[in-house]
Each structure stands twice: as structure tokens, then as C-alpha cells.
């Protein structure tokens, strides 16, 4: 709505399907979010509106980013989808089932990794499988499979404290993938990493995730991260959190660092910045 209508390549979500051969979109959304309202009460403020009338339909198999400045409610929405945070009104369905608690179809990657320092890499990756009651031998094999997938085969018996931040987040990813989720939620997974590691891991994660069928929802405040990784981007405005627009990212796959030099990339980047700039100003003023 706040977006510049003069930019023609941008389409809003419901009208146009992106022509990605890899993901034939069926009519039924994987996650259906409609009219979601959420307010918080804290010591400082009563009934602070965090999300206002949020609507979003996440397609099966797509990679969608929730992009916006801090405090725009994007993480709150992610946690609502995860079943970790209750909401006031509206509906959130996964495959037509209303979300009331964490779903077995969902796994989450955390900003600060959320690894258990007392467990080895393998022990961490086995964690979700233990909770699901997967028997020992199968659990171990599955864990090894995903540890190898994220390229940490040599470190199965290491403890997280012996690994770099980037490696720790790969453990976090393996732990989430090991439960074979249909939906993978990632809450600023690169937020705790330095710039160089972040960039390397983004592309590596992209190639890892191409081997899974999961629908992926990523929370980020980085425009570049959203552009490089996603099929679609939901752009949030803050206070109260609201989705301004949903963009199709029609950049070619597979993507590597070269994608950033495409004119298309620059144009989309500019468009998103233009959409976020008034928001950022408002944010500064308040």
C-alpha cells in the first residue's frame, strides 16, 4: 500500500504466481494467516498493539521472508506460527488445522542458536528426535545424516563451545531439519554472526535447503538477506506491526553472490528501501 506504484515488476501476493519451475504451487496454502491481532501488556505500556490485521498465505515449498525494522512484530508472527505465542484474534492454520500449540510439522532455528552446551553436536541434533520418541539407533543414524548434510561430519563428538558461531548455527539447522519438518521457521538465524560468516552461511544454507522439501519462513531485518534467499518477501511496517506488501522475488535460481550484481536485484532492493524509508523515519521520530 505504501509501496511505489510506479515500479511495475512488483506484484502483490494473490494476483500472480512466480514462475518457479521447482515449486508448482497448489491452491491450498501451507500456512494461512488471516486477520491476526496481537497485543502485549508490559509494565511500561498497557495493551501495546504488536500486530494489526496481519494476512498472509504461505505456499507449500516456498521460501518466504518476513522483513522489517526491529519492533515490527515479525518475530512475534513467527512465534505465533510456531505455536509459542498466543494471539488475540484472527486465525492461523497449518494445513487447515488451527495452531494452538507447537506443531509436529514445524521446526525452528533460533537467533542465538539455542544449542545445549552439555551435549555434543550429535546430542544436540538428536534432541528433537528424542522428544519425538525415535529409538536410539535410528536416532543416531538420522542425526549423522543431517550433521553430514550441514558439513559437520568431523565434529559429531565436539561440543558447541568448540565450534565457531557459523558452525554452531549449522548445528542448529541440522537439529531442526533432523525432525523432518514440513515447515522450517528461522528467527534471524544469521543475526548473531559476523558479516563475513553471515554471507558465507547464507549461500550455504540456501544450497542445503534446496535438498529439503520444507516450506521456509525466515525473519530478518536485512533487505539483502531477504532478496538473496527468498521466493517472496513480506515487508512489515512497525507500531503496530502490519504487512505493507508482499513481493515476488523473481531472481534466477540457483543463486550465488553474483545475483547481487543483477540490475533486477538493484531495482528490487531500491524498491524495498523506498518502502521502508518512511517507516524508518517514523520510527526515529517516535
Amino acid at each position: 500500500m505504501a509501496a511505489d506504484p510506479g515500479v511495475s515488476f512488483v506484484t502483490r501476493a494473490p494476483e500472480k504466481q512466480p514462475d518457479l519451475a521447482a515449486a508448482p504451487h497448489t491452491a491450498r496454502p501451507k500456512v494461512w494467516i488471516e486477520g491476526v491481532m496481537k497485543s502485549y501488556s508490559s509494565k511500561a505500556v498497557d495493551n501495546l498493539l504488536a500486530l494489526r490485521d496481519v494476512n498472509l498465505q504461505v505456499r507449500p515449498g516456498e521460501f518466504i521472508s518476513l522483513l522489517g525494522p526491529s519492533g515490527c512484530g515479525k518475530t512475534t508472527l513467527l512465534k505465533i506460527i510456531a505455536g509459542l505465542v498466543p494471539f488475540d484474534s484472527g486465525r492461523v492454520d497449518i494445513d487447515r488445522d488451527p495452531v494452538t500449540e507447537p506443531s509436529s510439522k514445524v521446526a525452528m532455528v533460533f537467533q542465538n542458536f539455542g544449542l545445549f552446551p552439555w551435549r555434543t553436536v550429535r546430542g544436540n541434533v538428536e534432541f528433537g528426535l528424542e522428544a519425538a520418541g525415535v529409538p536410539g539407533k535410528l536416532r543416531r543414524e538420522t542425526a549423522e545424516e543431517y550433521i553430514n548434510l550441514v558439513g559437520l561430519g568431523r565434529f559429531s563428538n565436539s561440543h558447541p563451545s568448540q565450534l565457531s558461531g557459523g558452525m554452531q548455527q549449522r548445528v542448529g539447522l541440522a537439529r531442526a531439519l533432523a525432525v523432518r519438518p514440513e515447515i522450517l521457521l528461522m528467527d534471524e538465524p544469521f543475526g548473531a554472526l559476523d558479516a563475513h560468516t553471515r554471507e558465507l552461511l547464507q549461500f550455504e544454507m540456501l544450497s542445503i535447503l534446496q535438498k529439503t522439501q520444507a516450506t521456509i519462513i525466515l525473519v530478518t531485518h536485512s533487505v539483502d538477506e531477504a532478496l538473496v534467499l527468498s521466493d517472496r518477501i513480506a515487508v512489515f511496517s512497525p507500531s503496530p506491526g502490519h504487512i505493507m506488501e508482499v513481493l515476488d522475488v523473481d531472481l534466477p535460481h540457483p543463486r550465488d553472490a553474483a545475483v547481487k550484481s543483477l540490475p533486477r536485484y538493484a531495482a528490487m532492493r531500491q524498491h524495498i528501501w523506498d518502502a521502508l524509508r518512511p517507516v524508518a523515519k517514523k520510527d526515529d521520530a517516535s
Partner: protein
Amino acid sequence: MKRRSLPDLVWAVLGIVLIVAVWQFYGQLTNPFLFPSFTRVLGQLWEYIASGILGRAFVETMGLLVVGLAIGSVVGIVVGIVIGSNANLSATFAPFIQVAYSTPRIALIPLVMLWFGVGFNAQVVLVFLSCVFEVVTATEAGVQLVTKQYREVARSFRLSRLQTFIKVILPGSVSYIFSGIRLGMGSAFVGALGAQMFMQASGLGSVVKHAMQSFRTDQVMACVITLAITAAVLTAGMRRAEQRIAPWRNDSFDD
């Protein structure tokens, strides 16, 4: 790291040598009944060891310490987990525990004597009271911290409350619990000595008391050296154990 460890040790030895030298020098100048020289204290220490007095007293004190600390640890861990798992309970008992934690518990000796007598069991009660709040406080803090850190991780992987407790909160809190026991051990040592001095005389406390009553400063100092070395060794041992149990935690709970 490796390069600095040797010089650090050399400096520490130099420090001890310096202090002992000053001590020896001053001790030879002044009245030996008020301030015995280092060699004189060392001689007394040897006499204690040779006569077996020190050995017997040491065993008695350690026995009291271990029994009191064991009970204090078990009770402290259980109470700490219960309080740490429930915000209302924590808010209810936090002020009491904080006050109890800060109070020098040897002040409870008269009450303990009145209620429990002066024997071994009464002394165990005092040692228990000396250390239990340290364990409660550290355990509670650990449980709360670990719960906060991993609540969402555990919930997102659909762990039950019991699974969360067994797989996350308990293993995550172990290092905090150990810190609490180490702190408690220091207070328990004070409590044990106080009990043996002021309740029924026994162990190292009785040796100190006897030395004091016969104005033998050399004996008192020999006892003090024994206590200092014992406390240092016990604390260092606990730190080692903590580091083995939680090598990823190089921060310490107390300092």
C-alpha cells in the same frame, strides 16, 4: 597462556617467601608469646602432626563437614529446584532466603544449642544451616536462567514438562548447583569450626580453643595454617570438579 603460567607461579612463590621472611624477622624481634616466629609455628605444627592430635581432629572436623554439607546439598538442591521452577514460590521466599544467606549463621549457635543440644547431631544442624542457603540460591538461579534460555527451544521441539526437566533444566543447572555447593562448603567449614569451638568441644575447633585458653599463640597459628590449607585445597578441588562437569562455563557464579 602457557607462557605466563610459569612466571605467575614464580611470583606467587616469591610473595609467600617475602611474607614468611617478614613474619620470621618480626617474630624474632618481638615477644614470642604475642607473635611467634614462623619457625616456631612450624615446629608446633610438626609437634601436632607427630603426636597425632592434628590427624584425629582433622578427621573429626571433616566428618562433621561432610555430613552437614551432604544434607545441606540434598535439601538445598531440592528446595532450589522447587522454588526456581515456580515464580510465585520464588517471590514468596526470596526475601527470607536472601536474609538468611547474608546472616552469619554461627550467630544461630545459642538457638541450635537450646533446641538440639551440643552433640554431634546438633553440630550437624548448625553446619546444615550454614550451607543450605548457598545451595538453594545457586540452584534456584541456575534453574531460572536455564529455563529462560531454553524454554522456547524445548517447547518448539514439543518436550513435555517432565522431558524438559530431565533433558534440559537438570543438566543445564548442574554447574550452577556445583557452584552453590562450593560456596556452601566455605560456610559449612566456618559452621563446623564454630560448632566444635562453642558447642561440644571436638575436632580442630577444640584444638584451637584449647590453644587459645592456654595462651599458646604458636599453637593457634599452627591451627590457622592447617585450616587455611584445608580450605584452599577443598575449594580448589571443587573448582576442578566444576570445570570438569561444565567445561564450557568459564564464568563463575560468585566472582
